């Protein structure tokens, strides 16, 4: 069966390096999400896997077969494009059949596969229409159908939901997840939407400027982001990041950012003292509690700047020791702007980054 391996892929257009030493492994049936900001090289990477773009160096292996010299049609893959790319001169049925006809499948097989896909995606009534007679969501389904009927080893998706409205996107996301569970085929999914990445991915690959920053499960990426970039990219509202200086020595950690000062103890023992002026303290909005937690915690006092009511949640923007912080809390109608407030952060939930790298410390109070 078919996982895939990318080995030290590099790609440059002229003198611009777009991908830098990309190595990645996915096991059979895994749902891999490539996540990163616009222009970071996600699509280029996907297109290299598909064979639509040639890498400058490095190697692509799909299902234990090096495919570097193979054209797209011989790689046994299917791709769903952001713009759908349905053949406008063919009906939906012919669109679905196209790839199978090219592969000289028998009419019976083609009929069966189209029937199955149409049932799975509920596009039976659309089969005799032309693409221009379909809505965006329907085109999306047909595009997926065209990929499914081929029964490829590997599915590639390039931001397939980004042209849909928010509601449809959410429901298609769920369907895509179901589809993956039913088909059990390896999928690579490109997106810059962290929610899609978190909800769909079994393995998330966070990229920036042609580099892989971190590879991990959604939980790993969310709870143990490797650097402030990943930390800020995942999560909504984004993680609070306080920039300051840090001093680590023996069992002590001291963090300063203007008025904001913190002195904590760690379980680790640091032999040689570390001092850095480029340190970041990260706190997720939902980790800022407005009720005293039982575990060891940090206490922040300040006042409320703005309260946003999301219905189920309140987003409270507060200012403490000159730091602007965002907290996500349960609703409480008595909170008003300018009110004094005391907030608490469990020490376990603090993220410490020194020189752009996460320091894995178990912190507690001195």
């Amino acid at each position, binding site marked *: 069966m078919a996982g895939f391996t990318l080995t030290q892929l590099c790609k440059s257009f002229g003198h611009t390096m777009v991908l830098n030493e990309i190595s990645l492994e996915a096991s059979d049936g895994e749902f891999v999400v490539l996540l990163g900001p616009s222009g970071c090289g996600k699509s280029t990477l996907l297109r290299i896997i*598909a064979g*639509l773009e040639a890498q400058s160096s490095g190697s692509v292996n799909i299902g234990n077969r090096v495919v570097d010299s193979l*054209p*797209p*049609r011989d790689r046994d*893959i*299917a*791709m769903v*494009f952001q*713009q*759908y*790319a*349905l*053949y*406008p*001169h063919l009906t939906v049925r012919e669109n679905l059949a*196209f*790839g199978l006809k*090219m*592969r000289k499948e028998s009419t019976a097989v083609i009929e069966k596969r189209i029937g199955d896909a149409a049932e799975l995606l509920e596009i039976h009534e659309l089969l005799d229409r*032309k*693409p*221009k*007679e*379909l809505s*965006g969501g329907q*085109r999306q389904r047909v595009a997926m159908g*065209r990929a499914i009927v*081929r029964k490829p080893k590997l599915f590639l998706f390039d931001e397939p939901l980004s*042209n849909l409205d928010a509601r449809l996107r959410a429901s298609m996301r769920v369907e895509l997840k179901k589809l993956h569970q039913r088909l059990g085929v390896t999928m690579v999914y490109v997106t810059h939407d962290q929610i899609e990445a978190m909800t769909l991915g079994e393995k998330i690959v966070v990229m920036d400027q042609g580099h892989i920053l971190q590879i991990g499960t959604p939980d790993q990426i969310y709870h143990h982001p490797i650097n402030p970039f990943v930390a800020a990219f995942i999560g909504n509202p984004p993680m609070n990041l306080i920039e300051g200086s840090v001093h680590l020595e023996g069992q002590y950690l001291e963090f300063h950012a203007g008025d904001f000062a913190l002195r904590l103890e760690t379980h680790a023992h640091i032999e040689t003292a570390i001092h850095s002026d480029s340190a970041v303290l990260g706190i997720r909005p939902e980790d800022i509690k407005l009720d005293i937690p039982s575990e060891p915690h940090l206490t922040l006092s300040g006042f409320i700047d703005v309260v946003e009511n999301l219905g189920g949640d309140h987003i409270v923007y507060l200012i403490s020791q000159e730091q602007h912080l965002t907290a996500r809390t349960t609703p409480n109608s008595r909170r008003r702007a300018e009110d004094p407030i005391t907030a608490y952060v469990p020490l376990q939930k603090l993220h410490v980054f020194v020189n752009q790298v996460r320091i894995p410390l178990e912190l507690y109070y001195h």
Partner: protein
Amino acid sequence: MTKPLPERLMLLVGIVFAVLGSLLPFIWFVLTSLKSQIQVEAIPPTWWPDGSLEFYYSALFDHELFNYIWNSVIVASATTIIALVIATPAAYALARIRLAGKVWVLGGLLCVAMFPQIVIAGPVWQILERIGGLNTHWGLVLPYVTLTLPLAVWILATFFKELPVELEEAAQIDGCTTWQALYKVMLPLAAPGIFTAAILTFIYAWNEFFFALLILTDPAKQTLPVGIALFQGEFTMPWGEIAAASVLATLPLILLVLLFQRGIISGLSSGAVKG
């Protein structure tokens, strides 16, 4: 949204003038072709013909018009087919492949298309003489293809450029080679462009006079424009026959355009991508 009345009136007057202006000569020779010899020579000229078909008969049978029509059909069809077969892949390559100096190639093509014919007449004649192409149909088709290629390539390249690359990539992933992607997906979508290029090429070859006169001296080989121009007898100018022959020569073009107009359904590619 309807425009205000004065604007619409101006538009209407403009259209009427443009149509009448370009149709007037045509109307005149249609009328002439339906007159009788006496009417043609009448002074002052009469406007309304009496509907005699004698000129048509004379043009077709006394002047062997069928022969010229047949020659024109051969030359124009061959030119169109050959030009398109060459122009299509060329235009596709120009539209798709990242190529340094592509702009210069396209610009050069346009320049070539604008050369005055007289400049190349001499060389063309010399080349054809050397390779034995004088007084043959292929000898005429050769310069026709050369002269129509730039425009055909230009038109087709414009069409190919507007087709989304993703369609081609989808086809490749679906199992097509580059060639298959071209003729199974891109060509059907570029059909309006292909029809346009084909019609323009055909019309050029059908109407071309200068090279035809230069290269074909044998009346059995001559095409319509030359044939008709050489109708004139020793002492008389057979205006009536010329008019009738001209009408007959124009009819196939009108038919062709009407026929292909159905094929030229623009917006064929809408729905391919979002929007």
